[in-house]
């Protein structure tokens, strides 16, 4: 029953997308506006199909309907409610289903927003591109990644439940939807970019159309990445928040190009420059989300997050190749129309700083990409096996990250076109002192090491710049000085700086140790004492937990656990972390006391300033929300470059 319902939903979604494309292309050819006007109706059909499929899957999971293979593999009668809902995105097929419904949602909202302008070819083409992407994903679900494959379970069969690592923390229920809202969200600006290339209206109109969508997707992607880092910090514990794992890198890549785009698009809006570059960045961002999905799903790279292989890999790879081919082909074809209107007057200017920013982001993306695929390339070319791990990524990205921090200090105070040295010195005076102050403070507090101190100094400098901008804007405009892209952007900068400084501190000054403690025994680490009090076991529905009680500094009791999941037999530790403004203390059980050996294996990590990574993430999101609100009223088309009359006509 659920199966039939779900398959019906998928077919409706697939069929609806195909019909929509035919109708929209028909509308373009026959110039019949009434066909195009139905755009919203088509999108609603696709959305209805996706919702039907998701409802069927959730019903099946809730009823433990093991006649569906996916439920048999990922459901279990012992899984608690929340994780049972989240089981939908804990494996390959279900996560594609999540992708499908989010995409259908985006298409519907876009179609609703543009409903009054369905006679504009740019808008029609954008919808066609989105429906084409939707055909691919629904097609994927009907073929290689079908979530509704039939299964005939033995009587009394009970499934293993989702992967224990994924049931270990509430965050896992929210991290994938956030990430997907970000990933899929980039479909919208990509669709408009392709539409602009196809219609030849490559001016600034389509940019303004998609500005808010891009910010929206970027915000969710940021949230998704930070939630993912938080999850690995809380659950994996040992490896910290970021392990440069291929799948983590895959989510970082579109973020890097997307962030570069958010900055460089301002240059195009103001000066009409960088048209090719911006289009390329958007196409790169979208194709990287597909590449990231391919890396996660195909099993080509090994990763904690990767799902097992199937025939999905080649399909996703083919789709990636198609997107790249279409993008590159269109950009090459429209090359002559993409010529910049404006030019740069001086490197020391706002646009010069944005160019530098883009260079650094592109460099970061290149390094991350190269490091991720390099083992595969070497394997394919020379047949050697080698690893590219965190030491490489840390060493390569640190100088680039510091450069970004430095640009963050300089760029906000730079005027467009050209800045004089005098002006720069005047405006940077207080921010620079802020940097010096932050250096002095960290030295007094005992921080050492070139990288960390550089990060603190430049971070202080950059924070000073951001504060200066915010102070000036609020002094002039009151609360309105906080909203709008540029002002909200400064708040995002503050969050980023917090994260940068916290990363530097936690990487440089973390201390850790491994101890074997008998009951009542004490260990010392990083100025703290750790005493093993006692331990006991608790039986849960889906697992048996060993809970140790550890007293830190003779005050606070920590309770790290070692969980043994009944269904899979896997043992997964749950570290106990207590966060503080200065440092977090994390305890994790490495070996349980046994009859032979009653002592407890314990790993203790003192992480300085990690809390500020999460606080910084919140600040970034808050800033993004501020940036999405419109700032002081300004005609968006009052750009420096003179738009052609056609663009004026359509982008209002």
């Amino acid at each position, binding site marked *: 029953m659920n199966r039939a319902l779900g398959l019906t939903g998928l077919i409706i979604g697939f069929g609806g997308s195909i019909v929509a494309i035919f109708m929209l292309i028909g509308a373009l050819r026959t110039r019949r506006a009434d066909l195009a006007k139905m755009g919203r109706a088509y999108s609603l059909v696709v959305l209805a199909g996706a919702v039907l499929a998701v409802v069927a899957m959730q019903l099946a999971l809730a009823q433990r309907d093991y006649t569906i293979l996916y439920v048999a593999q990922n459901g279990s009668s012992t899984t608690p409610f929340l994780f049972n809902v989240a089981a939908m995105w804990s494996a390959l097929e279900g996560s594609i289903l999540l992708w499908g419904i989010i995409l259908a949602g985006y298409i519907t909202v876009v179609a609703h927003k543009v409903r009054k302008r369905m006679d504009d070819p740019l808008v029609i083409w954008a919808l066609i591109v989105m429906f084409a992407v939707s055909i691919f994903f629904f097609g994927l679900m009907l073929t290689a990644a079908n979530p509704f494959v039939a299964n005939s379970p033995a009587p009394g069969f009970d499934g293993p439940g989702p992967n224990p690592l994924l049931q270990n923390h509430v965050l896992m229920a929210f991290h994938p939807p956030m990430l997907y809202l970000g990933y899929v969200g980039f479909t919208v600006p990509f669709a408009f970019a392709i539409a602009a290339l196809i219609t030849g209206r490559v001016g600034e109109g389509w940019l303004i159309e998609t500005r808010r969508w891009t910010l929206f997707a970027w915000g969710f992607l940021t949230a998704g990445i930070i939630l993912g880092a938080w999850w690995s910090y809380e659950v994996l514990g040992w490896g910290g928040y970021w392990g440069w794992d291929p799948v983590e890198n895959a989510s970082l890549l579109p973020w890097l190009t997307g962030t570069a785009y958010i900055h460089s698009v301002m240059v195009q809006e103001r000066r009409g420059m960088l048209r*090719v570059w911006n289009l*390329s960045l958007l196409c790169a961002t979208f*194709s990287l989300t597909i590449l990231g999905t*391919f890396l996660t799903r*195909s*099993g*080509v790279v*090994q990763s904690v997050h*990767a799902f*097992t*292989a199937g025939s999905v*890999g*080649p399909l996703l*790879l083919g789709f*990636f*190749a198609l997107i*790249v*081919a279409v993008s*590159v*082909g269109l*950009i*090459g074809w429209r*090359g*002559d129309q*993409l*010529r910049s209107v404006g030019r740069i007057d001086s490197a020391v200017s706002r646009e010069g700083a944005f160019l530098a920013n883009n260079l650094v982001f592109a460099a970061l993306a290149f390094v991350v990409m190269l490091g991720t*695929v390099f083992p*595969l*390339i070497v*394997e*394919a070319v020379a047949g050697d*096996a080698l690893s590219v791990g965190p030491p490489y990524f840390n060493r390569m990205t640190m100088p680039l990250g510091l450069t970004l921090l430095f640009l963050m200090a300089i760029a906000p105070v730079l005027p467009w076109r050209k800045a004089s040295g005098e002006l720069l010195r005047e405006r940077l005076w207080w921010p620079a002192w802020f940097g010096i102050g932050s250096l002095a403070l960290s030295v007094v507090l005992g921080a050492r090491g070139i990288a960390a101190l550089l990060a603190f100094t430049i971070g202080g400098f950059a924070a000073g710049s951001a504060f200066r901008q915010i102070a000036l804007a609020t002094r002039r405009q009151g609360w309105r000085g906080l909203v709008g892209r540029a002002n909200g952007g400064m708040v995002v900068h503050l969050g980023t700086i917090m994260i940068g400084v916290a990363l530097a501190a936690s990487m440089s000054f973390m201390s850790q140790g491994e101890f074997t403690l008998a009951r009542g025994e004490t260990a010392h680490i990083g100025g703290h004492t750790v005493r093993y009090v006692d331990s006991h076991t608790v039986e849960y529905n889906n697992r048996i937990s060993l809970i140790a009680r550890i007293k830190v500094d003779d005050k606070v009791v920590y309770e790290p656990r070692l969980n043994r999941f009944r269904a899979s037999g896997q043992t997964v530790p749950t570290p106990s972390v207590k966060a503080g403004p200065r440092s977090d203390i994390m305890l994790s059980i490495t070996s349980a006391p046994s009859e*032979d050996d009653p002592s407890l294996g314990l790993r203790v990590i003192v992480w300085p300033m990690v809390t500020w990574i999460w606080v910084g993430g919140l600040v970034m999101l808050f800033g993004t929300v501020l940036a999405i609100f419109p700032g002081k009223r300004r005609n968006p088309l009052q750009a420096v470059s003179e738009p052609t009359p056609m663009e004026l006509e359509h982008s209002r």
Partner: protein
Amino acid sequence: MKHRSVIVAAIFGVAALGLVIVFAMSPAGGNKDVRSPILGKVAPALTGQNLHGGTVDLDSFKGEWVLVNFFATWCPPCVLEHPELVRLSKDDGGQLQVVSVGFQDSTAKVKEFFADNGGSWPVITGDSGQIGLEYGVKALPESFLVGPNGRVIAKFEGGITAKQVTDYITKAEAEAGADTSSSKSSQEPGS
């Protein structure tokens, strides 16, 4: 200007194409070849306490084929693999000398395991973690085929079957025979 954008687009296109080809060529997880830097080298020293008190030394088996097997009683595929080892072992009527190393396991448990499941070849237990590292053991079970010349000829990751090993020896011996009969042999004396 048109030329330049076409050229840049082409460069990106070619780079992306290369990436796609590399990905398409890469085998999906788990199908990678078994590799080890110690292949072809003299097998690392292997001495230790036998289950029953005597000493075991790999060197004492020089001149014959030896299968060095790393296992643990807590590792399910190792338990599955055990009957195959029994079939292979010379001490139990097979054709090959087997030496096992219990990795991170207690002597008592290994003793009990062998009593329950059969097998009378030499087993080293106790402080055997170091030996595992010398051989480059990644995950249990793993087996190393040591040739009569004392060099590591092959490495097997995961559970093995008796046939897999005997086939390998037959092939290696045929090749060695062909090698010595043809010309410049790279084999060590005594092979």
